[in-house]
């Protein structure tokens, strides 16, 4: 071991806790922070602090003002009122450059990585070193190797970002933040795109960083993660801090209640399924992915009326291609898909809708909504040309608006009006719009892909209840989710997918979490 000048600071492991308590060694101290966008008050009079080496979770529903808060800490937005002090220095944070200089690093919800550049290039962007005017790329590669070794996050410095899976991209994003001297690391929904395994790895990394003296602020709405790593939790609701609690003193139910202000049913209440006739039959399906490799490879599954079949699996095992094939978005290479006996293997998305498939797509921004269209129009995207929404060539705007308003109430969408553009909504409300549209026409098969991804607890509960209600009305439901808890609590029957085929099928009542985890990992 070579002793570097900075080691003594980290070495005071034993005295650290006492010193912190005695001097109040606050890394971040926010007092009376408010921020408004037009008439929307995103943050109201927020006060919070973070101590050295502490992991603080910011918990809240979509639109509670968490992202707005951390953007101000990172200098991306300026507060209207209040102060943000970093290590006792309350000078305004002018811009990200200033924030970086003062020891703040941020991992963004949408990765701030240039897709066509390599890991090494992204790593040095903004603080490049040069030799004789030329970029020192060898030095950058060395930096990547050192950092990934130090933090146990393996990445190839020469890989281009766009070729990397999201989990790896996120490692790069975190390493990038750590490549500057970081005292406070902000993680904005770091686990939203990760598989359970990747999530666990990340949580480990966070603990190690905190043990090394780095403070972490992390945003999430997953209660399990909060309880697993956080020292303290701030709960935000409608822009205000409504609760501060030590993680050791609370549990999932307590946190969920604080988030939404009422008791949340985390387990889905549902009656025994009453399965009827076969609705969807998939036989020996083969579907190619974007690289023309078989992602779905001999997939066979039947879904009956009145039951929820959950497909559990680690992301990237063909789930997306399977859903796209059934929805008519991706022509299968082989096999057969039938709906109520009708062959829909070669149907296009419109034909599958007409046949009776309601599809809640995985990527609602790209495939679920048109951001610039009004909510009312988005509610009829799949049947704008059908009566009563159109009469021949002429659209009936009155009917579209009335339909929108009725669904608004029914699905509890929170927005200024049905004529507001879809892009103006928060993630949870956007998802409710998609769910409303796909459920409201009485589908024979409801296919829900990651239906609660990036959605707040209140909306998750609501969406789950609607899915169960659709089942009880006699629809067949195919649920594809990367959240094992969601599959376990919602499904009547579970199919485990691995390598593009079903490796096990079981009634949900017999399902065992560890057993399924083993099957998902390809151990069968």
């Amino acid at each position, binding site marked *: 071991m070579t002793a570097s000048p900075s080691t003594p600071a980290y070495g005071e492991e034993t005295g650290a806790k006492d010193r912190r308590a005695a001097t109040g060694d606050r890394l971040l101290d926010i007092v009376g922070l408010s921020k408004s966008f037009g008439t929307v008050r995103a943050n109201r009079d927020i006060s919070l602090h973070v101590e050295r080496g502490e992991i603080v979770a910011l918990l809240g529903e979509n639109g509670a003002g968490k992202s707005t808060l951390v*953007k101000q800490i*990172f200098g*991306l*937005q300026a507060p209207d009122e209040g102060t943000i002090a970093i290590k006792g220095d309350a000078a305004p944070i002018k*811009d*990200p*450059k200033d924030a*970086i200089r003062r020891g703040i690093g*941020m991992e*963004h*919800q*949408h*990765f*701030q*990585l*240039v*897709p*066509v*550049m390599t890991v090494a*290039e*992204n790593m*040095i*962007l*903004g*603080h*490049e070193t*040069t030799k004789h*005017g*030329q*970029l020192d790329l060898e030095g950058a590669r060395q930096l990547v190797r050192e950092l990934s070794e130090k933090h146990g996050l393996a990445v190839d410095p*020469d890989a281009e970002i766009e070729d990397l899976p999201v989990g790896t991209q996120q490692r790069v994003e975190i390493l990038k933040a750590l490549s500057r001297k970081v005292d406070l690391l902000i993680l904005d929904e770091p686990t939203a795109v990760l598989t359970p395994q990747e999530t666990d790895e990340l949580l480990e990394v966070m603990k190690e960083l905190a043990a090394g003296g780095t403070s972490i602020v992390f945003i999430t709405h997953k209660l399990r993660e909060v309880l697993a790593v956080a020292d303290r939790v701030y709960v935000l609701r409608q822009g205000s801090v409504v609760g501060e609690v030590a993680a050791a003193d609370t549990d999932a139910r307590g946190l969920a209640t604080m988030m939404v202000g009422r008791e949340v049913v985390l387990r889905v209440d549902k009656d025994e399924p009453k399965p009827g006739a076969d609705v969807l039959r998939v036989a020996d399906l083969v579907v190619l992915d974007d690289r023309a490799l078989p992602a779905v490879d001999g997939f066979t599954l039947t879904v009956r009326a009145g039951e929820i079949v959950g497909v559990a699996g680690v992301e990237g095992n063909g789930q997306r291609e399977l859903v796209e094939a059934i929805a008519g978005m991706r022509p299968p290479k082989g096999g057969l898909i039938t709906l109520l006996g009708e062959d829909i293997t070669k149907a296009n998305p419109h034909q599958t809708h007409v046949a009776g498939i309601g599809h809640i797509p995985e990527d609602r921004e790209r495939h679920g909504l048109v951001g610039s269209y009004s909510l009312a129009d988005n509610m009829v995207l799949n049947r704008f040309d059908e009566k009563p929404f159109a009469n021949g060539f002429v659209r009936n705007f009155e009917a579209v608006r009335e339909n929108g308003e009725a669904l608004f109430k029914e699905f509890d969408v929170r927005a200024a009006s049905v004529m507001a553009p879809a892009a103006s909504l928060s993630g949870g409300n956007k998802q409710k719009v998609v769910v409303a549209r796909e459920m409201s026409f009485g589908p024979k098969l409801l296919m829900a892909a990651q239906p609660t991804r990036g959605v707040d607890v209140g909306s998750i509960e609501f969406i789950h209840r609607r899915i169960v209600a659709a089942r009880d009305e006699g629809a067949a439901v195919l649920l594809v989710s990367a959240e094992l808890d969601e599959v376990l609590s919602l499904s009547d029957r579970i199919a485990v997918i691995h390598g593009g085929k079903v490796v096990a099928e079981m009634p949900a009542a017999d399902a065992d979490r560890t057993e399924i985890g083993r099957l998902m990992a390809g151990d069968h």
Partner: protein
Amino acid sequence: MAWFSRNRSVTLTAVAIIVAAYVFYAINQRVAVSMIDFAWSFAVPLVLAACVGVMGERSGVINIGIEGQMLVGAFSGFFTAAATQSLWAGVIAGVLSGMLMGAFLAWTTVKWQMDQIIAGVVINIIATGLTSFYYKSGQSLTHVMPNIDIPLLSKIPLIGPVFFEGGPIALTTLVIVAILHFALFRTRWGLRTRAVGEYPSAADTAGINVIAMRLLNVTIAGGLAGLAGAYLSMEATPTFERGMTAGRGFLALAIMIFGAWRPLRAFAAALFFGFTSALASQLQASNIVSLPQQFINLLPYVLTLVVLAAAAGRVRPPAAAGQPFVKGEGS
């Protein structure tokens, strides 16, 4: 080695072209030199103008106004030189007026977020109007651009007399392309420029001033467009005519795309266009084919269509080209 395997097809193509050129040279020295010389004089303003497009789009600003920027450069260069009887003053005036037009595009689109296509069209209309209105006939230059020989380099067979012997703007163009290519891919400025054009919010969160980078790059690029204009009115022919850019600004955009937004490939693409023109003239002159002159003049434009159709979907523009950057959004 990694570089070679990634760029193998490009490298092999380049080698094949050079070999073909020397085979041609070995067969008929005089015709080869004259045709490639013709190609290069045709290509000079296109190379410069394509670099204007590359600098703009690589930093996220589409420049439809290259045509107008060149025209203004040609106009101010020629008339300043005619009035002062100094070629230097002319070239400087051309470059400065180009930068002014570049600054116009930069400030309207980057600072005030005007639509980039509309701003470019405005530049073209203003340029045509101004240069036609203030045009005076009967002006001429008393000096012509000197012919410069680069020692040693100009002695290389074929390449020497074509590229290393010529007017100062043509020679400068070679230097500019090389520097721009190096700067774009090997320097801090280049890394930041590309980041700003691909994913500006990533650059912003890394502490880079996106707005300042775009303003700077688009303004400097305007200077290159001015230089291209000065080449047309002072070096290629010592005269200014109304609308003398004749669509070269748009042709340059096609060359930029064909060149995959890389200066060196754009240089090769411009030479290819030039060579095709040379070939057509040669066929015409030697009576191998007899076509009306108009068809021959049409060739570069038809080729543009063909090339763009072929390149479509195979090359990818910088992702943020055309999109204004608003701080705090999109992250």
